[in-house]
């Protein structure tokens, strides 16, 4: 009990001298007064400013850097954009071009980007708390839970807040958006954009209303169990169904299928007569089926396009009658398909279906044995189809398309961490949440219906990036900053030719007036570009212009009349109003001019590095061969193309050579002499 006593004694000791209380309180006051400047002096950002000065002190560029340095808090304030960013208080080297060698944060130089920091600030791209002045409060996810710093690997997401059009510099974001559309994500999850439009799917899930005409219950069962077991490139995800569930759904889909007019169950399939066994394969090749369909080669690699489904084991899937009818005219079965109507002869149909029927996978159905379904099983199948939202993608008789089957994702990139449920072992951040949801959706709890996709890590990153671009900020930034995606127009060709073009599905590959695919050349100005005779001959026998291309124009066995209809229409309607295609003659150029053109071709412009005029001598393999260009293109088109290729076809890789009119004239004269047979005037 001596302690209180002791305290009291020392207390008394302190005040024995009357001056002391005064002295002590002054000292206390001084200390209190000093706290603010000391706090300032020891504040974190000053620490980084001192560190920066130390870093630049002995560099050869020190003088310039020191002159740029200003002590104190720095701030970018952009009221329009809601930006108050003090990041440059510590990130002092961001705009110093000479600091390219510094990797140490927070002092490294900012990589070159197309925007200025003074106009955009930092947080629009990097997120985080711009106004904070401590490291943790600015970056860390626990202290700035609304907007922690976005990890650098997802940076492209920030571009996507304003740029809804695909940018050359954002391949990851572009890929992610493509997957959202191509894998049907947006069929279940609505993604509305700030301009009022919505992301549209680009896949073509087939209708299931009369599926029994196409395939068997056994195949549906195997496919439902694992789409990849049938086709490695399947875009339909795996719903991880139990055997019983797959049994019941397959039973329901077959029982629910109702024959439609044109269905083929009773069709007689003829086999090809006196055919060479290789003829089917050659016809498959000649018809350029591989431009759209892939097959697995002997080495296990997929070869071919991805516009249509993979055909590696198509013989195990489709019924022979259906296949023949489909090849004869696909639109009879599915009016919305992109598959062209080829106009095969009966012999060709037999050859091609025979060839495709032979592409089988005997393992797929080996262990599938299904008994006739009971009424309970059928009812259960229907219930499952409704539960799993199958009708969000496929047309199914008696099941309506569910609205908003999955949660809307229009602003998922700003979802607060507090609203997320994490699984154990996972980083507690929004990007980690999103990529886990994409990679293993069912791991978040029982009873979830989101199916399992098989994405590569790069695809998961791309998708996560695309989702992270869907932020609140994309709505609040000024509308004038938005760059809308290029929307397809509703253009449809008219009249009899239009009917034909729809039947041939030309626009699955060609774009015309802003509508259509991008696999083949844009045809909007085809009538200004080519000569009528050539077009007619090309449609008759589309020998390819570019031997280096895998994807080529197929031959459609058009009748003379059909060809004439198409040719007339394209020559008349698909013209550039500013081009008079007859302004320059096709023939009759002076030999001296032609010779001058040849010199320019091989000399000044070295066109032979990409093009061939004389196949015996030239080797250029990038652009189309020009040995018959004088019979293909109009002279005026060639002239204008030489003057400015990008104006006629935006994005073409032909360089704009800034050519004088005289040079372009001479080259045009030389090229018009290249008429194929005989190679008059071609290079020596």
């Amino acid at each position, binding site marked *: 009990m001596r302690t209180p006593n002791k305290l009291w004694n020392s207390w008394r000791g302190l005040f024995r001298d009357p001056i002391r209380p005064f002295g002590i309180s002054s000292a206390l006051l001084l200390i209190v007064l000093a706290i603010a400047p000391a706090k300032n002096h*020891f504040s*974190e950002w000053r*620490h980084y400013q001192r560190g920066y000065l130390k870093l630049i002190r002995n*560099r*050869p*560029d020190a003088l310039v850097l020191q002159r740029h340095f200003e002590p104190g808090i720095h701030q970018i304030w952009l009221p329009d954009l809601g930006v108050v960013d003090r990041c440059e208080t510590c990130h002092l080297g961001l705009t110093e071009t*000479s600091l*390219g*060698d510094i*990797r140490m*944060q*927070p002092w*490294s130089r900012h*990589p*070159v*980007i*197309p925007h200025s920091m003074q106009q955009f600030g930092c947080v629009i791209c990097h997120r985080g708390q711009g106004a*904070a002045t*401590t*490291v*943790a*409060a600015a*970056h*860390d*996810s626990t202290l700035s839970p609304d907007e922690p*710093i976005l*990890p*650098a*690997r997802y*940076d492209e997401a920030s571009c996507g807040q304003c740029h809804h059009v695909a940018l*050359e*510099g954002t*391949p*990851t974001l572009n890929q992610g958006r493509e997957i959202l559309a191509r894998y049907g994500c947006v069929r279940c999850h609505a993604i509305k954009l700030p301009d009022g439009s919505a992301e549209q799917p680009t896949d073509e899930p087939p209708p299931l209303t009369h599926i029994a005409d196409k395939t068997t219950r056994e195949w549906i069962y195997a496919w439902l169990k694992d789409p990849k077991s049938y086709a490695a490139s399947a875009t339909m995800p795996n719903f991880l169904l139990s055997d019983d569930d797959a049994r019941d759904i397959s039973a329901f889909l077959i029982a629910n299928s109702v024959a439609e007019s044109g269905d083929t169950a009773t069709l007689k399939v003829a086999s090809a007569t006196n055919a060479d066994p290789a003829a089917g394969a050659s016809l498959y090749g000649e018809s350029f089926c591989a431009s759209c369909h892939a097959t697995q080669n002997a080495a296990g690699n997929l*070869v071919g396009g991805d516009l249509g489904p993979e055909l590696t084991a198509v013989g195990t899937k489709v019924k022979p009658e259906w296949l023949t009818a489909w090849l004869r005219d696909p639109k009879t079965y599915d009016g919305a398909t992109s598959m062209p109507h080829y106009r095969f002869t009966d012999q060709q149909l037999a050859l091609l279906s025979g060839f495709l029927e032979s592409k089988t996978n005997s393992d797929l159905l080996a262990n599938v044995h299904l008994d006739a379904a009971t009424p309970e099983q059928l009812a259960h199948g229907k219930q499952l189809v409704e539960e799993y939202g199958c009708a969000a993608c496929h047309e199914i008789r008696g099941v309506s398309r569910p609205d908003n089957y999955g949660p809307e994702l229009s602003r998922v990139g700003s979802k607060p961490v507090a609203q997320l449920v994490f699984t154990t072992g996972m*980083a507690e*951040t929004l990007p*980690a949440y999103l990529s886990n949801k994409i990679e293993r959706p069912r791991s978040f709890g029982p009873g979830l219906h989101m199916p399992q996709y098989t994405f590569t*890590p*790069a695809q998961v*990153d791309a998708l996560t990036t695309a989702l992270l671009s869907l932020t609140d900020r994309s709505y609040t930034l000024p509308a004038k900053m938005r760059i809308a995606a290029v929307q397809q127009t509703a253009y449809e060709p008219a009249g009899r030719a239009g009917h034909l073009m729809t039947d041939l599905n030309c626009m699955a590959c060609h774009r015309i007036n802003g509508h259509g695919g991008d696999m083949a050349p844009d045809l909007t100005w085809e009538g200004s570009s080519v000569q009528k005779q050539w077009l007619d001959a090309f449609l008759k026998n589309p020998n390819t212009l570019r031997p*280096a291309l*895998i994807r080529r124009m197929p031959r459609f066995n058009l009748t003379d009349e059909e060809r004439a209809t198409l040719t007339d229409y394209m020559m008349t309607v698909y013209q550039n109003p500013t081009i008079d295609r007859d302004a320059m003659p096709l023939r009759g150029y002076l030999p001296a001019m032609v010779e001058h053109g040849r010199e320019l071709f091989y*000399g*000044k*412009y*070295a066109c032979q*590095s*990409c093009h061939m005029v004389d196949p015996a001598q030239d*080797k*250029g*393999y*990038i652009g189309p061969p020009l040995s018959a260009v004088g019979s293909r293109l109009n002279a005026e088109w060639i002239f204008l193309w030489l003057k400015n290729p*990008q104006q006629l076809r935006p994005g073409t*890789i032909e*360089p*704009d*050579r*800034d050519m004088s009119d005289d040079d372009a004239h001479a080259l045009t004269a030389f090229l018009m002499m290249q008429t194929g047979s005989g190679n008059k005037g071609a290079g020596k």
Partner: protein
Amino acid sequence: MKSLHGTAGMLAVVVAVCGCSRQHKAAPAPQATAVGSALVVSSGDKQLGPAGAPLGQPLVMQVNDDQGNGVTGALVMFTGPAGVKFDPSELLTDSSGQVSTNLTLGNTSGRYQLTAVTNNKAGHALPVQVPELAAGYQEELGYQVQRTYCSRCHNPESTPEQVSNHDNLSVPPHSFDQGDTYNKLSDADLTAIIGHGGPAMNLSVLMPPYGKTLTKAEIQAVIAYIRLVSDPPYQAPGLVYAKQ
């Protein structure tokens, strides 16, 4: 806010710089059951990927014995500059003598020099340097631009999707990673060649001009890409000066 000072802040910055996801404490190092006498890269070096993102291919290394056969059970350890993540960073060679690790580079663009090490019989470390390349926005853009406009002439390798035109040219161009050629050309030289064509620097007319086809930013981006992929690495002139 006030409780956060010095060390905590430094820690936070380290975490932020390292790409944000806190690494779990690595499992204890596996015990080597064998040693080899050489360590070589099998695949996955000199990859180009976006800064901060995982590289597309794993880095595969092989431990060989004196006869050049793969050794099973040898320990290989990976280290790299701050910000680089290895998954895993230490592991034993498999039955073919190989180890494979997934890589994530740091958040800043540039060349990352990684090191793989195994020990030989005498207990000496056998380090091997493995370069990997992280592209920032500009280099990424440059990669895309050169793939569209340039690589069919400049890259001698053909793929079914992109048949090379390299061997068709009477004066063959250099592939963009040939530092011996490109490091001698200044940014101004490269801008002149790309903008005005080969003749601008007394080179062949087979090199076309792109000044009216590409924007200035695109040409700069291609140059940034060329600088990044150069082998031997490119040293910006300012840096040489700084070292003297």
